[in-house]
């Protein structure tokens, strides 16, 4: 007997037989099935107690109430707040995606000080104490040298307690330069102060209106308060309300309207005046209102009847005069007609003349201060601020001319001309030594980005209070990161055209995730560090204490219910010198007010026109599109990293372009490589591009995708007001 090959075979067979009778194969098969179904590296959300926190969304000016679902200490979903007067349970794409901003990778986690060159991305982490001391020292030195007015602040809004706190700080410190980012609200406020005679926001009782004439306003594309407007659009479907969209491009709003009237871009004011002319000629205006409550009608009528006859308007707007006449009749004969303007989401200011012309239409049909019409709400008075103490330096400083020229010289009416700020700083007309940037991203959002960049280079010290690594924060010297809206208390005043004033309260849903500080608290610390006299006007221990004090009796209601509405504020009043609605708004030469706004550029070198458009899927404000939202952008708008521009097939054919072909889009302000998308819904001769793309900052989901249209578009100063009246720019498409 000897051990040979067979023995080993036998050993193997025995082993196999034993294995089959052992649990190894069966157990391992089962375990590997569980393992492969539940990869251990796949995150499994932890279970816990579900709670809801009522708060307010501040990602856009819409002011929706939100209800955030939490599992233990983690926010897991943002929903619309039921019963909130703005959105009643509804929520938009951006609002839903807010958690990606809270937990996403673009947060600034701790105070940062620039280490390398500006924009190089080299930062050193510093403590809050160091950061506050540095700002306070810089401000203290400037004040001592009598340069207090060289400090400026750009804020996303001027409503609410935090912007007011910053404004108060500048006033106490001695600078008039508090600016908010431009939008159509500037034009509405200016128009209201001229025609109604007081500082106000415009309210629209759109849900009850039955004929909505929109001069390019993206009713379902983010104009006003987006969720409320989408709801309103649905309600007209049920109530039989008609919508007419006047716009050069078949936007979603135009597509969903009862009638879409394409118009030569920038000539909306002429159409409004033409419609007014028809209404006056046919005596379709509400005589009682016009006679009893308006002033300057004869002068206005004289101008429109002579210069804006249907034939003349047809030539300017490209709309047939029969269409104009029929539209005027339908508008005037409706029971509750409303005319609105502000192109797209109202990101651009537009000319004062355009707004006054649209407002005149509303006055002619007499739907001012009544159900289904428009209202003027006085500036919010829900906050009771104690008086501040201005010493000599402060008193002298705030009297100086603003860096943007608003409120003085030719622009006596304007409150904010942030559009002019970059130009005046770049050209050296205004010296700015310190710039605070609060809840805004001017380096991305202001038109003519290159000029803004140049201007920023001339500002020696830029302090960003941004929660995110946006373009402006990237190019600042010091970042004092704010809590994001889901981590902080803040009152949210909704200025975007609701039918009554609403204030919501943003509440901390989760505790701060990083070493950030409420911008209000950071500012209070800076004031305290500077010492008397600046500190004397900031007696509060914290921003929370300040908010509670200035809200007084409303604080309790806001904390409990999440919002507060002022139903008593819509008393019909005109505070002009005549005590009536002013058609002319104090302008002696109406023709100058209603002057055409021409696009920048030589028509020969730039035969086409570039117009920007807005989309609900692309956030174009301070907040960049979060990853969820980027995913929803159609591939006819953004393909890979390429931006697509909409061009009419006839225009494309003439230039030799086909669908998807590359082109260089050139404007007097710059050029960019784009792809051509053929679109029958855009008028020939135009090129349309969305706002909100082409970020260089934020995360990899957003940065480097598409083109920032603001880089290609400049500003066109409205001679009547100083507002930026640009609606587009001349452009050319060249084969790439």
């Amino acid at each position: 007997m000897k051990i040979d090959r067979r023995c080993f075979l036998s050993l193997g067979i025995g082993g196999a037989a034993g294995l089959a009778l052992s649990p190894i194969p069966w157990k391992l098969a089962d375990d590997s099935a569980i393992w492969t179904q539940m990869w251990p590296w796949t995150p499994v959300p932890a279970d816990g107690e579900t709670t809801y926190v009522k708060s307010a969304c501040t990602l856009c000016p819409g002011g929706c109430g939100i209800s955030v679902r939490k599992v233990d200490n983690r926010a897991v979903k943002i929903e619309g707040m039921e019963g909130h007067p703005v959105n009643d349970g509804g929520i938009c794409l951006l609002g839903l995606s807010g958690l990606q901003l809270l937990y996403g990778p673009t947060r600034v986690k701790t105070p940062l000080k620039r280490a390398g060159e500006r924009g190089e991305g080299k930062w050193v982490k510093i403590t809050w104490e160091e950061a506050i001391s540095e700002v306070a020292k810089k401000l203290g030195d400037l004040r001592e040298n009598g340069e207090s007015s060289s400090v400026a602040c750009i804020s996303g809004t001027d409503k609410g307690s935090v912007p007011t706190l910053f404004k108060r700080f500048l006033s106490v410190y001695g600078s008039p330069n508090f600016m908010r980012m431009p939008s159509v609200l500037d034009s509405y406020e200016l128009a209201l102060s001229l025609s109604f005679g007081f500082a106000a926001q415009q309210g629209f009782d759109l849900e009850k209106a039955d004929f909505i004439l929109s001069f390019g306003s993206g009713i379902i594309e983010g104009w006003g308060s987006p969720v409320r407007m989408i709801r309103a659009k649905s309600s007209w479907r049920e109530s039989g309300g008609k919508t007419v969209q006047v716009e050069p491009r078949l936007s979603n709003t135009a597509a969903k309207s009862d009638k879409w009237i394409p118009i030569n871009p920038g000539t909306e004011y002429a159409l409004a005046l033409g419609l007014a002319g028809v209404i006056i000629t046919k005596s379709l205006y509400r005589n009682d209102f016009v006679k009893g409550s308006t002033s300057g009608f004869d002068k206005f009528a004289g101008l429109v009847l002579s210069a804006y006859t249907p034939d003349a308007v047809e030539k300017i707007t490209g709309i047939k005069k029969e269409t104009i006449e029929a539209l005027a009749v339908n508008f005037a004969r409706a029971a509750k007609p409303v005319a609105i303007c502000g192109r797209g989401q109202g990101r651009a200011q537009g000319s004062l003349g355009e707004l006054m012309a649209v407002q005149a239409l509303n006055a002619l049909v007499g739907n001012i201060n009544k159900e289904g019409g428009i209202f003027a709400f006085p500036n919010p008075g829900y906050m009771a601020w104690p008086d501040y103490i201005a010493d000599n330096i402060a008193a002298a400083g705030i009297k100086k001319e603003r860096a943007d020229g608003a409120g003085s010289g030719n622009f006596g009416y304007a409150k904010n001309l942030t559009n002019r700020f970059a130009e005046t700083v770049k050209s050296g007309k205004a010296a700015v030594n310190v710039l605070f940037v609060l809840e805004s991203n001017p380096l991305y959002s202001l038109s003519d980005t290159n000029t803004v960049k140049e201007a920023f280079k001339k500002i020696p010290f830029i302090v960003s209070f941004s929660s995110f690594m946006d373009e402006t924060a990237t190019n600042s010297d010091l970042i004092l990161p704010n809590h994001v809206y889901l981590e902080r208390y803040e009152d949210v005043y909704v200025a975007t055209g609701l039918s009554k004033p609403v204030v919501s309260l943003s509440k901390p849903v989760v505790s701060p995730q990083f070493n950030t500080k409420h911008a209000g608290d950071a500012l209070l610390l800076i004031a305290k560090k500077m010492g008397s006299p600046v500190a004397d006007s900031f007696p509060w221990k914290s921003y929370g204490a300040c908010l509670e004090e200035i809200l007084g009796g409303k604080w309790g209601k806001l904390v409990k219910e999440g919002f507060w509405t002022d139903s008593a504020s819509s008393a019909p009043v005109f505070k002009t010198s005549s005590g009536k609605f002013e058609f002319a708004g104090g302008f002696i030469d109406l023709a100058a007010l209603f002057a055409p706004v021409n696009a920048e550029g030589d028509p020969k070198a730039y035969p086409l026109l570039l117009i920007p458009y807005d989309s609900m899927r692309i956030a174009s404000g301070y907040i960049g599109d979060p990853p969820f939202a980027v995913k929803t952008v159609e591939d006819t708008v953004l393909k890979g990293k390429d931006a697509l521009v909409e061009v009419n097939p006839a225009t494309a054919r003439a230039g030799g372009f086909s669908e998807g072909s590359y082109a260089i889009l050139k404007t007097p302000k710059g050029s960019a490589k784009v792809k051509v998308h053929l679109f029958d819904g855009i008028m020939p001769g135009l090129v349309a591009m969305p706002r909100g793309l082409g970020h260089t900052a934020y995360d990899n989901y957003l940065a480097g995708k598409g083109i920032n249209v603001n880089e290609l578009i400049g500003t066109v100063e409205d001679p009547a007001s100083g507002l930026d009246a640009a609606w587009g720019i001349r452009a050319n498409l060249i084969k790439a």
Partner: protein
Amino acid sequence: MSTPDDKTKEVSADAGGEEAVASFEGVDEKEQGEGPGGFVILFFIIGFVASLIIGWVIFPKLLYSQKRQPVDFNHAIHVETVGNGCESCHIFREDGSYAGVPKLAQCADCHQEVQGENPEEKIFVEEYVAKGKEVPWLVYSKQPDCVFFSHTVHVKLAGMDCVTCHGPIGESTSLKPYEENRLTGYSRDIWGKSMSGIKKNSWDRMKMDDCAECHEKETGRKSSVQTDKDACFVCHK
């Protein structure tokens, strides 16, 4: 002479059969004489037994790691003290959802200070309550995330007893070591202590078939046409 085909026929018939067997035996005898005969069997047995030992004794030890709970909790002593049985601590929240293992705050309601002389309680109060740190309990009954299980439905609606699935854990005076499956990360209690899967009590094993068995028996539902049992989506949402 016959052809090979014919021969085959003969073999398969009758006489040829014996011849064939004999010739095979002849071969065996010849090789057994010098070959490893007994060793073949011996090696077979060695292989067989070794596999069984590896499979039944060593494999479970390798597959499962033994972990100690952070605090050795005494269920029995707590059940005696509280008034409402398991639900005194393993509560159902106001919205009806089940809270599972109590959170630190719940324990701290009573154990803000050390009350008894048990060293484990001292550890608990000093290490967790004082530091405000949640106890990282290892949960024996944790099921994979692909399973939707509602305690409310089973306990409140169906009136099931905790013991049916969890066993008499309420009578234990100490927590047994947590045996974690190194491959899946789940507790050994899911498969059951017995590697062979033999179960004596309803709580000995908590695999899918055990759920299905009870569902079939108790609900009588056969919502799935394919399996003639409760449908997959009852638990796999």
